[in-house]
């Protein structure tokens, strides 16, 4: 058995949308989501 990734705390998951979130936390979230979710304007034919 090998632990590769530990579970994330829900508070951490919701930190970028929390009331007092700092700009760097929000930006980091945007960047990481863009990396892992390909959350960008698409140029493909999805129809």
């Amino acid at each position, binding site marked *: 058995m090998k632990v590769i990734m530990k579970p994330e705390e829900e508070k951490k998951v919701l930190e970028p949308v929390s009331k007092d979130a700092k700009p760097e936390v929000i930006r980091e979230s945007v960047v990481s989501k863009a990396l*892992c979710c390909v959350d960008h304007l698409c140029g493909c034919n999805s129809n």
Partner: protein
Amino acid sequence: MKASKYNVIVEDPATGGVLLYNSLYGSLTAWSKDEVAIVNRLLAFPDAANGNGDIQQVLREQKHLIEDAVDEMAIIENRKRSGVADSNRLDVIIMPTLDCNFACAYCYETHQASSMSDDTERAIKLWLSHEMPKHTVVLLHWFGGEPLLGFQRVVSITEHATAVALRSGTCCVPHMTTNGFLLDQRRATALTQAGVHNFQITLDGPPDTHDRLRVLKNGRGTFRQVFENVVGLMHVDDRVRVSLRVNFNQGNLHSIPTLLEMFPGDIRSRLRVVYEPIFGRCALSASDNLPSEEISQAMAQYYTIAEQLGYDVVLGLSNLSAGKLVYCYAERDNQVIINYNGDLHKCSVSEFRTEDRVGFIRTDGSLVRDEQKWSLWTDGELFSGACRSCSYLPLCMGGCRKTRLEQRGPGNCCALTPTNASYLLKQIAYGRFPNLVRQCDQPTAANHDKS
């Protein structure tokens, strides 16, 4: 105790073991061949440790096993509602024109001669002046059509936005998706001085493949000029970062390494390579014309080559993190696309017809939302029926809202590899999840140590 509904078991044929990933919590555990039967038994009968307390303990710590009282659907629904309502971040996508100088073979847009009026530019500036200070971060995307056909509007509005940000303390992040053809030194300099440092530019392989897919309206190839412009752009300002996108299908997939060899070494670390399959049901579709295994192997190989050549490559366990809140920006209440004519839309994969708009901007800079249409994107059923029983739901958060709206059928809109699906979901769909984890074996230790 019970098993989490979001455990995803992926067999690793190379070792006979399994990878146990939890899509809700982001935990990932590798189990050896000898442990597989015990793990499966404990997931089926969580309280029956029978001398396997150590394994049971790890399953609990990793949240593969959870307390009976935990309502996991409530956690996911809370994430989605939080993401939809999030006001920390404002996503503004401005389309200065729907026209384009390219006639790409796979483009979904219907290009039309169009340009933004002075009144609309003024209205957008007024709106940005009073809207931006309400948010901590503003993402200002330039899209189209080809946004550089409205170059003066882009510069003028971006300069205004960055000035508002400076005054209000808002963090403004401008970004442009462009075909790069018009991005000469003069325009590149003006844009970077205005604050646009992030670009997405597509090159579909080296000249012989790119020039078959991405051509000017007169059919002429565009590779040479786009390539030279990208290189020039990178030398204009050290802050410039470019997502170098390659849309691939059977015709250009294996030309990617040739393209990678072409860029000078000194700019590669600021070029992030992104390979995306051409979608759709047509002769150009990657998924219809390439076996998934071939795509999988090529992706693994070509990202590795890119990394070895010094490009910015998105690979690693950081890409497996949990925490997606909405499927895409269109579901966020604080997101809007402003078309050249002042129409408001939500989804960028659209024909941008006025009859489909979700509102418009007045000349006084106020947004008039058609609440009934707007709410179709932000309210209503969070997830369709089939999604509620899907163990991948936290990675996807309900799939494409546009598709759901158009098909109006719960649970039948799912495709594992849409553009906005999570990176991980794509890896699973392409069958290369074990490869990914094996590639990450060294970074894994560092990642684990940090957490």
